[in-house]
């Protein structure tokens, strides 16, 4: 069954939320890429905002605005994906507990530390009693939320589904992950990712929500042709076969793909596979990338889906997205992301 994206909203480190222009201006960062926050008072009252951590603000705003954009008040399901969930509230409770040696603690941050606070708060806001799941499979978290949503539509369980990927980065989490050599050791411009010669990436964050439906609305962004992912793939040959088999299963060939968005993140070791693909399997296909805009995080593929759906709707590939200078007006986009040679994911979408 065809699946349509009828609403697409993102809060990210770039000017992506309710902008007139499409990535016209690009923000430069050198370490943490923190999301550009709208004036949340436009969406919630002060009492409501006081209780929300940063991730809850970006989560609730993008989710509710997506529903508004689609004109859907009671979605048939709410599926969310997050790698790390509500880190800020988790850290607050954990720090207080450790600092006071399990002394008197405030329950609010504990209550809001659970991953499913993301999906639950949206349900609470809309009084939506329908299916509601939060997926937490690292860099496949958003893919699972999306796959579940597509299955629910195919099962006839729901017509319109709210699905999103959300993650936040905090200074403390950034520092802890430094020890794992995940980040660039020196400040590094996000606009230089393609010229990187070192290991490590730049961390980012954001929320991207979509309303996907069995029927296309006038506001339709794109059609999801398929989604597939695999935790482990052994070697480049298997990876090429993974692409070919998936395209073939969906009656497509490489020539049908007009643009590939690669999850290049500036880590020379991790990026090798993207360049290898670009020079072989997709050598005749225009290439683009997105993590210089969003930063690296577990649900960055949700940002990529926002980007791809907007490219198709606006009939325009922003210059900043292109790897090569090929002129392209894509009808069909393939998003490929992976995580340290694990969690390979493909999403293919086309014009609706």
């Amino acid at each position: 069954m065809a699946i349509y994206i009828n609403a697409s909203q993102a809060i990210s480190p770039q000017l992506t939320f309710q902008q007139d222009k499409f990535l016209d201006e690009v923000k430069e960062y050198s370490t943490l890429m923190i999301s550009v926050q709208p004036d949340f008072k436009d969406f919630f009252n002060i009492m409501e905002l006081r209780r929300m951590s940063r991730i809850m603000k970006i989560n609730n705003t993008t989710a509710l605005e997506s529903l508004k954009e689609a004109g859907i008040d009671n979605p048939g399901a709410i599926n969310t994906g997050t790698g790390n969930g509500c880190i800020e509230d988790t850290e607050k409770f954990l720090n207080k507990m450790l600092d006071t040696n399990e002394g008197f603690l405030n329950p609010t941050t504990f209550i809001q530390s659970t991953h499913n606070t993301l999906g639950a708060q949206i349900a609470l806001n809309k009084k939506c009693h329908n299916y509601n799941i939060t997926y937490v499979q690292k860099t496949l978290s958003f893919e699972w939320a999306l796959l579940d949503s597509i299955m629910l539509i195919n099962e006839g369980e729901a017509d319109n589904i709210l699905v999103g990927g959300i993650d936040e980065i905090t200074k403390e989490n950034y520092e802890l992950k430094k020890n794992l050599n995940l980040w660039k050791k020196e400040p590094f411009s996000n606009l230089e990712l393609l010229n990187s010669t070192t290991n490590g990436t730049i961390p980012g964050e954001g929320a991207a929500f979509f309303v996907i439906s069995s029927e296309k609305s006038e506001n339709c962004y794109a059609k999801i042709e398929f989604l597939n992912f695999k935790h482990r793939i052994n070697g480049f040959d298997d990876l090429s076969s993974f692409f070919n088999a998936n395209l073939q299963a969906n009656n497509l060939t490489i020539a049908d793909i007009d643009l590939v968005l690669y999850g290049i993140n500036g880590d020379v070791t991790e990026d090798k596979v993207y360049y290898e693909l670009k020079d072989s399997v997709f050598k005749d296909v225009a290439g683009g990338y997105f993590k210089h805009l969003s930063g690296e995080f577990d649900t960055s593929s949700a940002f990529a889906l926002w980007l791809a759906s907007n490219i198709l709707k606006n009939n325009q590939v922003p210059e900043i997205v292109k790897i090569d200078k090929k002129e392209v007006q894509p009808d069909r986009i393939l998003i490929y992301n992976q995580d340290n040679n694990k969690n390979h994911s493909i999403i293919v979408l086309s014009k609706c």
Partner: protein
Amino acid sequence: MKVYVSGIGLISAIGRTIDENLISLREKKTGITKIEILKTIHSDKNVAGEIKLTNEELSKDLNTPEVNSYPRTTLLAIHAAKEAYKNAGLENDSNFRTGVIIGTTVGGMDRSEIYYKNPKENSDFIRTHHCGFITEKVAEYLNAFDMISTISTACSSGLNSMLLGARLIKNNMLDRVVVGGTDSLSRFTLNGFKTLMILDPEICAPFDKNRKGLNLGEGAGFLIIESERSLEKRGKDPICELSGYGNANDAFHQTASTEDGTGPYLSMEKALKVANLKPEDIDYINVHGTGTNNNDITEGIALKRLFKNNVPLFSSTKSFTGHTLGASGGIEAVFSVLSIKHDLIFPNINFSEPIEELGLIPVTEVLEGKGIRNVMTNSFGFGGNDSTLIFSKI
């Protein structure tokens, strides 16, 4: 298409294996004791369903790499998943697609709270903190990688892993799925529930008029669920059918449930519909029954809404195991399968007087030979995430 249960595995405060758990249940022997393994200042004032094995002991038994390099949730999950795999007599077969889906809330928190302030001592803990780590390691242990997923919907996480697994089989995306829930005790959750003031300092009393709250617990419960095709191919008889599942949201409050039990009612109603059963077809319900004031009254109201004056035989096993959070659905699903397998209903120990507004009396003695056909089990969580499963005799 039908989905079958072909194997079960379990570790909880009342036993390290299926057999040990079954003995404790039959003997009405609780696993709720003084806290000894978890290092917390609250150990003398609280009881919990704690498994009296250290991480080192668990790790040694499983032969997992580097003692103490895996969080406790991961070790418990591998322990139970291994038993389930063996119980199902499953062997890797590249002709069949095998996946692993796990529900959890604690993730790697037990290690994070030890090393958080001393990252130099063991900087690796942050790599094992995310919930998905558990599933990666279980998949690695069983060499089952076709699909891996982790769900975190608070206390309904375990049941939701089974619901997803069943749907993946029905959608022809997997043939066999290792599904379950795992959670360990941690200072984070113990202190968290303490701030909510819903911990009973003594053994909890689910569905009792004078219930004072819940006891936390830990453990892991796993099922192997399988397609008909896969079972036929290997000539294996299943234990029972996973016939129904429902997921709904209460959409009322982050930590409390509605007075009219909307979420629980809807998840049970949906599960009946998927199973194509009527309320009167249910013979036993392993209720969520945490022993908190709020849960038991709203679950009871939802039961009466759905079953009217014919609420089936029911019991909560939380006074045996404690509330194991994301693992509770996993553990209680295994209990439900055992109920069908042995035609057995487990007692709700520590019950004395019914809640006045409900007048509902749980089963308090071991019942055998009731001719159990369909068993329902509930899990309700923070955020109003409610789920129900139904298992049926074949």
